[in-house]
């Protein structure tokens, strides 16, 4: 599979690290794995870390917005971090950056979420 999804629980925040290529084919993986975590545990917030995401198209945007809806329905916050230039462009075009904060690094995102 061309995408690896790594999840880690830090305090009440779920950190999701994406490694590889996120498209319609691999979006299903993210949906399943993240929802399993979200449904099984009481997380408040979520950070999506994209340092090693080499490719993302609008299907990736869709799955991230879908998780954002879930998290905010439960009163949680969500943040993105460490995106490459081309991925940033897709977030910018969609206006997502008006609702989702984007941080340079995972550490910074964790601090802002109050987890560090």
């Amino acid at each position, binding site marked *: 599979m*061309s995408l690896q999804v790594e999840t880690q629980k830090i305090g009440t925040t779920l950190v999701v690290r994406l490694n590889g*290529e996120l*498209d*319609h*084919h691999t*979006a299903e993986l993210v*949906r399943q794995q993240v929802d399993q975590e979200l449904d099984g545990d009481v997380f408040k917030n979520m950070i999506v870390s994209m340092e090693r995401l080499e*490719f993302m*198209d*609008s*299907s990736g*945007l*869709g*799955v991230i*917005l*879908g998780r954002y809806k879930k998290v905010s329905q439960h009163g949680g916050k969500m943040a993105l971090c460490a995106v490459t*230039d*081309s991925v940033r*462009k*897709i977030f910018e*075009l*969609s206006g997502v950056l008006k609702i989702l904060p984007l941080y340079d690094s995972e550490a910074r995102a964790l601090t802002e979420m109050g987890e560090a």
Partner: protein
Amino acid sequence: MMENFMRLEFSGLSANESFARVAVAAFVSQLDPDLEELTEIKTVVSEAVTNAIIHGYEGQAGNVVVICRIEGQTVEIMIEDQGQGIADIEQARQPLFTSKPELERSGMGFTIMENFMDDIEIKSELGRGTTVRLVKTIRSAQVLGH
């Protein structure tokens, strides 16, 4: 002046989305695009091929066709399906419009294609299929005077 042509036809399976991107990128790489241009081309191919699979064939079997033509520094990419077709192209092109919100589609596919390419043309007929034509001139090699 460089002229080149390729036509790629494949099963409309989601596993072929990355294959289609890689194939088009390998074909276009003879124009010496920079990394940004190459990523933009990969992205739009991914968008249009995914649309053919999800919206065109809606999970039914069917082939997707990708045609690339190079003339000078310009690449023309056509992505075709023989699926459902689009009822209202104007509406489909609106940012954030999607007919499949239940599949968590973002409705940004056409907007990304418009932004990443120099030109886009959409032809569609209900019940017969859709063709998206995308054009981009690769500038990076020209700047270097290749």
